[in-house]
């Protein structure tokens, strides 16, 4: 199945996000896909707002099954999120479990005024009562595979790999 060009989807996300941004907004990406998107958005938006990363490894609900991985990019939120509007950014929304973990972790940094979720692709298979506030593309055609946004020499593309990996 052919997925849209990620840059086009990021463009759509940007058009939507700039309407939401004010002085109290911060963008927090979920690595690794969310970080790639954040880098692109940063080029368009500039450094007028705060950017951070949230790695959910320690907040996941499947530690007994999958163990804990140490990522190269770990959580980095070097600003106060109390009373802020946090926009979480991820590449693909699938079950909702990663977002659940990210929200839990965010509350260990403070109490944001609002948290919303922006993704490039919504797979529409959420297992929790969590849904993105914005998705640039919706699909439920890919069933037994993961979709990841990857960056290869400045070029962005979606990679599809089996769930067993």
């Amino acid at each position, binding site marked *: 199945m052919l997925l849209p060009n990620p840059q086009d989807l990021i463009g759509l996300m940007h058009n939507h996000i700039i309407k939401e941004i004010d002085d109290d907004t911060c963008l927090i990406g979920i690595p690794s896909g969310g970080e790639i998107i954040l880098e692109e958005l940063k080029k368009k938006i500039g450094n007028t707002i705060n950017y951070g990363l949230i790695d959910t490894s320690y907040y996941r609900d499947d530690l*007994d099954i*999958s163990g*804990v991985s*140490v990522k190269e990019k770990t*959580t980095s939120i070097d600003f106060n999120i109390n009373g802020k509007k946090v926009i979480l950014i991820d590449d693909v929304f699938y079950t909702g479990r990663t977002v659940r973990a990210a929200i839990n972790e965010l509350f260990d940094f403070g109490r944001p005024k609002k948290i919303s979720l922006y993704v490039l692709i919504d797979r529409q298979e959420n297992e929790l009562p969590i849904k993105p506030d914005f998705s640039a593309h919706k699909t439920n055609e890919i069933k037994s595979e993961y979709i990841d946004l990857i960056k290869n020499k400045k070029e962005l593309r979606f990679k599809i790999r089996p769930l067993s*990996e």
Partner: protein
Amino acid sequence: MNNSPSKKIINLQHLLEIEGLSKDLIIKVFDMAETFLKTSQRDVRNVPILRGKTVCNLFFENSTRTRTTFEIAAKRLSADVINLDISSSSQSKGESIIDMVNNLIAMSADIFVIRHSKPGIPKFIADNIDKSVHVINAGDGNNAHPTQGLLDAFTIRKYKKKFTKLKVAIVGDILHSRVARSEIQALSILGVPEIRLVGPEELIPKDIGGIKVKPYFTMEEGLKDVDVIMMLRLQKERMDGGIPTKEEYFKNFGLNKKLVKIAKKDAIIMHPGPINRGVEIESEVADSKQSVILSQVTYGIAIRMAIMTMLIGKNISN
């Protein structure tokens, strides 16, 4: 999203000694400890990794620092912590150690942190209990103190970065020191090319499990141009006779300002604590800029959090 395609699985059931651990695993522990140093700086320092799990501190030998840092580490991981006061427990009523541990497992203990004056007790317990339970050796006689060895090596990495270019001097009573044994093993696995053992001849062992070390019997020779000075405590409780007097020991092997100058300019000074000021180390040196003794304590929490996380997680993938 998570999980990269090249998944590497390393399982850790117990942490009984450093010997046998791979370099990869030790580096993984350090990388994980780095992330816990970050979470420890947040408003909420806890992470939910061990939520619903129980960590049981079984200290058959006195300890303040190690027990406290294990307790803080477990609590920062959201575990329930039980500290057993052995002197008032059923041990004094004649119950065997395995019976005692099995009773605690029946009460749902998941990780045991064990310190004992007899070498091999943590391993004995690990060998004789249910496989779903994990044991961390928090010091057994003069055998091993693996978390201390790891946190000391981690401290060195924080200040020195490259292990493969270092000269490290371990000073004092090496013979009776489980800390020294674990430090030597960790540094050897990490590729430190020159490990010097400095102390009175009678307190330097002839062999450290085949690891290449250089013995020195004077501070002047042993500290020359080293990058790291690791002091040890004089283990009076583990010596039988032949103990040098405090004054005599300090005169020959106590670290003072003058001796520090023999080492490299940017050498760091370490001590596993508790420090005996005026016995192994001059007060002014212990409090100097080169001293990283208090950082060792802070890093010890992060290292113990990483170890407990690795024991509970099914595997570590990268």
